[in-house]
């Protein structure tokens, strides 16, 4: 019987010729990831383990400070310190402090730490992002990560696979984010629980690496264990530019068995928006804008949409314009490298000139940690991945999830806006940022 892409990778890492869904395996890991929150707990668990003196391989662990950095408070500083000291003590090769890394899932592929056919576990649910490169990658909690630190192995239940086959060319202002939001809307937030998602079809063949990252990243939003693409020439070129490490490109068998096969034609897909308070409450933009929805904060960034391609789209739309006086826009380039690239291209200046606050890379705003927390009764539109109650701060705030283009359009008008209408809207180019909050009028 044939195997799916996920089954192929798991079988090789478990040292077995074949396996089937539901089977429990012990699999060798190629890389174990943690951030300062999950690492601090994992390190404390490891310190309490009898016989656990060192990590299985200091070159196969990545530690990235990204959630509460630059440290929000003394407690956060302590967690980052615990991780740093551990990295020094254990001679961890891939340790990224603030200023030298960024968001873990943006950093690891950039640094060549992710390659096709590999098995990666991380102390963060969006570890599934690396499926974009044809790797099996899944998120776990800190105790599991501690076990992986010392054993270099994890136990896994082999997931059944759901095959998603996309066809059609995206229309104007329709991006990978819109396709994935629609997908989560179709599957539901527990529609792929305990399952692997395998992405197929001409649409995703044409997608950029960044687009695939956005889609793999949100597999967890449908509850999936992992979301995976087949590596192609684009993937191999991306990875080979960043590492000389050999890797094995796996391919699903022609007679692989899928639990479900779902065809999705995106030809007529509009930009999509996930409305409060679940990521599967997804509606086409034309439906959402029937109601006037003024926005208090626009957020651009995260492991879903904090890449240079995303910032280019936003900068193009905001170039020479000013954001609406009624709101604030916060931009977090996903990594230090993305930040520098954006600086070189003049993107950061364009965004700042439009009135955006450009932050240092990090996860803070996305999970309600710091650097962009929402207050009571505020409404945000965001390029992030979750909109649960309280996700970005106050439980009384509303979060809408959308693509960078839809967020940029909304930033210009001050309300949730269809990006396809932006060329038609007359947005005054303002020269001063002094604005009366009461009247919305500008003073020179």
């Amino acid at each position, binding site marked *: 019987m044939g195997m799916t892409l996920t089954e192929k990778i798991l079988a090789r890492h478990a040292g077995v010729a074949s396996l089937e869904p539901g089977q429990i395996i012990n699999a060798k890991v190629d890389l174990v990831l943690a951030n300062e929150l999950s690492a601090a707990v994992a390190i404390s668990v490891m310190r309490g383990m009898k016989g656990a003196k060192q990590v299985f391989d200091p070159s196969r662990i990545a530690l990235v400070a990204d959630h509460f950095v630059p440290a929000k408070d003394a407690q956060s500083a302590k967690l980052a310190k615990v991780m740093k000291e551990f990295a020094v003590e254990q001679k961890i090769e891939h340790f990224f402090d603030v200023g030298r890394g960024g968001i873990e899932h943006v950093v690891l592929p950039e640094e060549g730490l992710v390659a096709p056919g590999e098995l990666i576990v991380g102390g963060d649910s969006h570890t599934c992002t690396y499926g974009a490169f044809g790797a099996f990658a899944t998120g776990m909690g800190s105790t*599991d990560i501690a076990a992986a630190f010392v054993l270099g192995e994890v136990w896994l239940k082999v997931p059944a696979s759901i095959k998603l086959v996309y066809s059609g060319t995206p229309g104007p202002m329709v991006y990978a984010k819109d396709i994935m939001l629609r997908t989560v809307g179709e599957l539901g937030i527990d529609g792929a629980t305990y399952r692997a998602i395998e992405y197929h079809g001409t649409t995703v063949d044409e997608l950029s690496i960044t687009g695939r990252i956005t889609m793999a990243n949100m597999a967890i939003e449908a509850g999936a264990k992992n979301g995976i693409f087949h590596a192609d020439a684009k993937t191999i070129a991306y990875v080979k530019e960043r590492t000389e490490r050999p890797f094995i490109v796996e391919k699903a068998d022609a007679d692989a068995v899928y639990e479900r096969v779902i065809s999705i034609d995106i030809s007529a897909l509009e930009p999509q928006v996930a409305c409060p308070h679940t990521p599967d409450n997804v509606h086409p933009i034309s439906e959402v804008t029937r109601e006037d929805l003024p926005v208090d904060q626009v957020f651009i960034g995260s492991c879903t949409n904090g890449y240079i391609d995303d910032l280019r789209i936003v900068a193009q739309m905001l170039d020479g314009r000013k954001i609406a006086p009624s709101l604030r826009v916060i931009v977090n380039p996903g990594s230090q490298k993305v930040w520098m690239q954006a600086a070189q291209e003049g993107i950061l200046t364009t965004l700042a000139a439009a009135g955006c606050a450009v932050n240092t890379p990090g996860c803070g705003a996305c999970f309600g940690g710091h650097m962009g927390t929402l207050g009571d009764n505020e409404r945000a539109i965001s390029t992030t991945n979750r909109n649960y109650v309280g996700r970005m701060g106050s439980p009384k705030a509303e979060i809408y999830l959308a693509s960078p283009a839809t967020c940029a359009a909304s930033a210009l008008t001050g309300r949730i806006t269809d990006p396809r209408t932006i060329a038609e809207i007359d947005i005054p180019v303002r020269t001063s940022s002094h604005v009366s909050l009461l009247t919305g009028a500008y003073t020179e």
Partner: protein
Amino acid sequence: MESSLRGRAHKYGKNVDTDVIIPGKYCNITDQTELGKHALEGLDPEFVARMKPGDIIVADTNFGCGSSREVAPIAIKGSGTSAVIAKSFARIFYRNALNIGLPIFESAEAVDGIESGDEIELEPASGVVRNVTRGTEYRAAEFPPFMRSLIDAGGLVPYVEERLANQS
């Protein structure tokens, strides 16, 4: 693991996510008791004040969906909650709960047969869920053999310790 657990039920709906179980702003806390003070704060801010040690959380499908934060089950445990009964659990939460020793029970029938305030008795070893108030009894889904052996060994940590001992 204790032979039986007893407490009053606090019932919630489906998709209780980790952001409402323990909001992100508390994720830099490592102390279990301190985390417990904020358990379910995003969903039911009165939960911690209302509940008594030993009480039981009852929920519909997909309990614990969202992030991988291990502090979610730790906060529930830290609040004094003795167990969670749900129709189903999200994958990472399920692993985390087993790893940190928060008893979980999967049973759609039990959830349907329990209302908030009911007195519930649980037997972790056998998976028996007894609704003392209504005089009904249910049996939760059995753990797969591998997970059962992990639980019986005392969790993942003793399992790893044994592996390490065999390596040396």
